[in-house]
């Protein structure tokens, strides 16, 4: 009987992000289903250098400085010149990143011709909001704003 193939419970990217959001203290989390195909949505989400500044309005630029498989290092600059170095894991439907002060993630799963998209972010240390280029996304702009903007950016790319 041990040779039998037992049913396994798989976890898609959105479920994984729910776990991380529940585990990280004080995390902001939002999830929604977008009436857009997964490939188009993820093309926007995964384009860190071009699209990230549009998704997170506190970010002026995002530059990938190192790549090794699905691991990246990126440098973010805020509107007021603040800098933050991020470690990033980027896979289809999954993005996880961490700087000294912030943890963030995006996840997407295809649901027929739609996409379930989720976003989370959390401060790692108290007071980080004052110095970090991305920190306002966790305060005045909740995660749902990121989801709205990703839908807008995806639609804009498709129309081009």
């Amino acid at each position, binding site marked *: 009987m041990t040779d039998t193939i037992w049913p396994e419970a798989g*976890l898609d990217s959105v479920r994984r992000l729910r776990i991380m959001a529940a585990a990280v203290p004080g995390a902001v989390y939002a999830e929604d289903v977008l009436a857009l195909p997964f490939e188009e949505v993820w093309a926007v989400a995964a384009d860190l250098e071009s699209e990230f500044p549009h998704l997170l309005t506190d970010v002026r630029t995002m530059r990938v400085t190192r790549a090794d498989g699905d691991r990246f290092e990126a440098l973010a600059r805020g509107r007021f010149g603040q800098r933050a170095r991020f470690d990033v894991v980027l896979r289809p439907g999954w993005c996880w990143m961490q700087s000294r002060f912030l943890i963030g993630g995006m996840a997407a799963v295809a649901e027929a011709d739609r996409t379930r998209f989720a976003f989370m972010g959390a401060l790692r240390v108290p007071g980080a909001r004052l110095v970090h280029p991305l920190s306002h996304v966790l305060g005045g702009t909740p995660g749902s704003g990121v989801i709205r903007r990703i839908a807008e950016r995806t639609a804009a790319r498709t129309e081009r």
Partner: protein
Amino acid sequence: MNDGSERAAALVRAAQRGDGMAMHDLLDLLAPYVGRICGPIALDDGPDAAQEALIAIFRGIRGLRDPGALFGWARSIAVREAVRMARRSQGARPAELDDVPQPGDPQLAADIRDVLRRLSPEHRAVLVLRDLEGHGERAVGELLEISTGTVKSRLHRARLSFRKAWR
């Protein structure tokens, strides 16, 4: 400690300090393991059970004193969550095995899921821990908080159902 468990223990210690990358890599490590336990016990509710189990694991990780005990600790949480989820979903179905598969049932021949579905969540938990995870009856009893005698009887009845299904 081998390389794998040393790496897991290092990730636990880093995750306990709030390192998000360590949490990420720990999730990579634990998700397939928890999924293998929750799948056969919770069946259709397996992904929900695995999600809830991993939330409990990550919320409790700071309190794990011995990082080397990670998988044993995670296993007990996963089994408990899978049984709880399956019981809730089963609703009015009796907790004890009372509908042993009939020999010759064509649907049962190839589908382990169907056979498992005919067992109670408690029987499935015993089967997973004993036959899939390879634990002794005593360890299974301690994990599920039942006597060794109950482990033996549940295991006997669960295996009997498989034999009948595949006769």
